[in-house]
């Protein structure tokens, strides 16, 4: 089966006016997203994420390389009929209400439904916008506009969802709902390609992660492989005499005095020794949990490290 998204040596340079030097947005990037995967597309601002998404939607033409989406060239109507797209900082017609907007998009999609009103009502209920009939989008808050955007992305019952910052502007409850929605889509076998700056969300829902910086892919792979095996342990204790604290620090452990307990993080190689020291020193060990690097730590290391240069 062909991949859902395929970039092979894609380059894109934006020409600028008035003699300013051109900007290389993407330089020879290659990656694949398999069908049924949820793929996180990460990178700092200006890394080339939105340009990549615009290329795969057919909005921007490449200067070099090849890209395919659902086996078609970007912009092909057969592919677009199966894609749900949420642009970054998108805007919708301010004179329409959410129902009219979804009806407008439904007419433009190739999806034929017997009861369009019922489908639209169902989608609006899904994104918690069912109580705002008649309110023009121009009067919506940023979070409400984002919810309409998510509803329109789901409208065509797409096989592939391309979501550029789907949780932008949403409150924590809204972010949680989007996360649950993504997990539901994943369970249905949909392919999701999303960018987000909230890495904990990516870590919770994604199978694969692609990290780009300065228009180049600096890391790509399955998320469990990228996160690796646990390499540290977190030990929570009730008290820590100063002499004992110095002893564990000498083993490279970090000590953090929290409100109700004390948190010690130490390399897995020293976990047994530290735990024994704490027990024998009179501290009550409340818990001992294996830890591995978070996606955020890996991301910051990648975009700030030598691979980023």
């Amino acid at each position, binding site marked *: 089966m062909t991949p859902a998204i395929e970039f092979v040596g894609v380059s894109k340079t934006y020409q600028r006016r008035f003699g300013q030097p051109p900007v290389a947005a993407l330089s020879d990037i290659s990656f694949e997203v398999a069908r049924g995967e949820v793929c996180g597309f990460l990178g700092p601002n200006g890394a080339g994420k939105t340009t990549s998404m615009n290329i795969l*939607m057919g909005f921007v033409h490449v200067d070099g390389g090849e890209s395919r989406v659902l086996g078609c060239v970007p912009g092909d109507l057969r592919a*677009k009929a199966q894609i749900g797209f949420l*642009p970054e*900082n*998108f805007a919708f*017609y301010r004179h329409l209400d959410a129902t009219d907007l979804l009806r*407008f998009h439904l007419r433009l*999609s190739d999806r034929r439904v017997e009861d369009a009103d019922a489908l639209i009502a169902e989608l609006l209920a899904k994104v918690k916008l069912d109580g705002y009939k008649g309110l023009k989008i121009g009067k919506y808050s940023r979070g409400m506009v984002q919810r309409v955007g998510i509803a329109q992305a789901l409208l065509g019952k797409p096989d592939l969802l391309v979501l550029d910052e789907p949780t932008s502007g949403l409150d924590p409850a809204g972010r949680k709902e989007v996360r649950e929605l993504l997990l539901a889509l994943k369970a249905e076998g949909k392919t999701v390609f999303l960018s987000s700056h909230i890495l904990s969300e990516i870590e919770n829902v994604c199978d694969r992660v692609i990290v780009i910086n300065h228009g180049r892919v600096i890391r790509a792979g399955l998320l469990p492989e990228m996160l690796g095996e646990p390499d540290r342990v977190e030990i929570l204790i009730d008290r820590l005499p100063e002499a004992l604290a110095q002893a564990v620090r000498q083993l490279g452990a970090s000590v953090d005095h929290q409100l109700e307990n004390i948190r010690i993080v130490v390399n897995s190689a020293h976990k047994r020794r530290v735990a024994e020291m704490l027990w024998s020193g009179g501290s009550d060990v409340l818990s001992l949990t294996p830890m591995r690097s978070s996606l955020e730590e890996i991301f910051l290391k990648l975009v700030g490290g030598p691979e980023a240069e």
Partner: protein
Amino acid sequence: MKIWTIAINTFTSFLHSKVIAVTGLLFALPVAMGISSVLIFRGKPELMGSMLHDLSATLQFMSALGSLIAGFAAADAISAEMKSGTVLAVMARPLERWQFLAGKYFGVLLLMLAYTIAMLGTGVFLYRLAGLPFHTPWWVLISYPFVRYAVWASIAMLLVTFLHPFVTMAVVAVIISVVTVLASPAAANYSAWIRVPLHVTLPLTTNVLSEDRFFSMTQASLHRYPWAFHATALAYGLNYALVCFLLAALVFHRRSLVRG
């Protein structure tokens, strides 16, 4: 179906935008002038010439205003979508770029059809108010200005696919001014070096592009020219519009939909 959906949405967008408010205001000014003139000069046969002059000026102003609105609306229909980013969600649908452009174009034409009908209604009202007979057939007063607006809209749409909307508007305004002068009845007195190229580039279309000629077209002049003449003149105008639209579609197909 998709083109029609976009056209209707474009038309309703205009009705909710500043375009309609500015249009209404600018439209009201000459109408007020025409009504004032009729009320002042009505029933005074010795001042009939002044009243006819004012009525003619009113109708010409409304007609010329329509040309500018057609250009502005067409440029705005595309540039507003690009600037706000609404074009991205729309073009993510299974829709060809030319279909999007055609929808926008037909939306502008719907606006201009409404404008043309309003202009015709105003003209009839002013003539009736003045107690004057209205000889010009209604289809002439609709089809000629409508085709002219279709030409200006397509030119503006072509220009805005690669120029800034303000630059587009300035260029369209200059083109409208130049063509209006060149297509006026006075063009018959121009030197040969102007008349010959004009005849080559605008054959028969002077009737379409002139802001005032169709208003002086009486039933008698229609009889003098067979229907085929009008059909050909209008077809020439539509041909210009079609060529400009196709060029606009070509440029739009090749350009990026993302600003910056």
